[in-house]
């Protein structure tokens, strides 16, 4: 049998010398220009990190291209960020501008640092996931084609803004805590292929999988039944039972969520909350989605204070004003109906008109 359980390569062998030498010794940083972060060490060492946008879904040519660049300017090392950008780590200041020039020449985009929109955390979409309601990569491309000036620093914004896209409510990625999240959703009840259920599904598991108790066994057909009234289209049953189909190209679509945040800076981490319950899937460019996202960014950028994340801004101005300023309609869909719904009902007369 092949060697097993040996794990990944040791990170210590993957560090550029300047990082190895100044490990744990960094003193402070600044962002001298968009996409360039300068870290200064207590040893006096200075490191420039140049952040380059990545489509994340890449091929071997692309991998070899960034290797070429890293070998030329960075001693043969590079890293990726937790949001999938590439970082070129420059220890020789004289190499910084040539690197930037070459990246530009090759058509790469630099940015994403500091108060900017960084890369979009996203998921598989129609490219690889069986659950995908929409295409994540296509949405990202469409949205960022609109928003790239916020990445590259051409347009300044008051704080960092994180966008995430998930192709279904499983929300792989960080949609549930992003400043703006785009999430694929279903709007119709799963359809049952009784014969297939009988053959391929564990009935008890399927019944138990439903968070609202909408499913009960149908012993006659050795299948199950769904109470449509109780079904919230979460798709959970379809994960455990392949014989249930929830995909519905006419009615599946995209929802938009706002105000989430992960960091503990100033305020506690927050969940993203519903802004737009439904927009039709409109590939390849999803114009309604990109317009809405852009609009949200613009309204926020105009009204927020320095350093104020989307969620903090909304907390300050109140959701009633958020809906007013953005012009988005507030509907019964926005009112929570899940387990802890009552905790979001307003139990104070403190509100705005």
């Amino acid at each position, binding site marked *: 049998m092949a060697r097993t359980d040996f794990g990944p390569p040791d990170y210590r062998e993957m560090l550029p010398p300047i990082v190895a030498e100044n490990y744990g010794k960094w003193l402070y940083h600044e962002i001298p220009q968009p996409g360039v972060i300068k870290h200064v060490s207590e040893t006096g060492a200075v490191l420039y990190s140049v952040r380059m946008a990545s489509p994340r879904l890449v091929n071997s040519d692309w991998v070899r291209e960034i290797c070429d660049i890293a070998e030329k300017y960075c001693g043969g090392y590079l890293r990726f960020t937790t949001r999938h950008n590439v970082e070129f780590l420059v220890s020789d200041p004289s190499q910084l501008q040539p690197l930037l020039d070459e990246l530009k020449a090759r058509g790469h985009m630099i940015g994403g640092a500091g108060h900017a929109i960084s890369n979009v955390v996203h998921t598989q979409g129609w490219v690889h996931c069986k659950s995908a309601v929409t295409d994540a990569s296509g949405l990202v491309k469409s949205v960022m084609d609109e928003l790239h000036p916020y990445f590259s620093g051409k347009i300044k914004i008051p704080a960092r803004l994180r966008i995430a896209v998930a192709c279904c409510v499983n929300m792989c990625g960080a949609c549930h805590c992003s400043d703006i999240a785009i999430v694929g959703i279903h709007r119709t009840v799963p359809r049952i292929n009784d014969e297939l259920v009988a053959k*391929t599904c*564990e009935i008890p*598991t399927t019944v138990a999988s439903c968070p609202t108790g909408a499913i009960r066994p149908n012993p006659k057909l050795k299948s199950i039944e769904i109470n449509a009234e109780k079904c919230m289209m979460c798709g959970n049953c379809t*994960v455990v*039972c392949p014989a249930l189909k929830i995909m519905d190209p006419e009615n599946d679509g995209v929802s938009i969520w706002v105000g989430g945040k992960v960091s503990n800076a100033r305020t506690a981490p927050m969940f993203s909350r519903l802004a737009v319950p439904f927009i039709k899937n409109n590939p390849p460019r999803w114009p309604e989605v990109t317009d809405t996202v852009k609009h949200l960014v613009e309204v926020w950028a105009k009204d927020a204070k320095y350093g104020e994340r989307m969620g903090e801004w909304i907390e300050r101005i109140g959701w009633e004003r958020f809906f007013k300023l953005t012009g988005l309609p507030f509907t019964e869909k926005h009112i929570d109906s899940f387990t802890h719904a009552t905790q979001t009902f307003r139990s104070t007369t403190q509100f705005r008109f």
Partner: protein
Amino acid sequence: MNYIEVNGVKIELDEDGFIVEPDLWSEDLVKAFAKTEGVEELTEDHWKVINYLRDYFKQFGIAPMIRKLCKDTGFSLKEIYDLFPSGPAKGACKLAGLPKPTGCV
């Protein structure tokens, strides 16, 4: 379509090599599967696991959780993998003729 031949009969398999008609399971099918799943020789221990899985499924309509399987059969997880190199889900369940495990990936 995939098939496996057991005693000259072609049994339909899904893409992952699980049988499509649970009723067509047989001990000979197990033997045929053993080869594709890297089980060199079907020992008593193998049968213990297979029978346990079948019984459990018959009784509860679901496959046991792996920890339960280990506890009830007395085999450690490592021993299960020694018996079924492709693991309890892809290996043991397939041999036992259970529906293909779904869910969590």
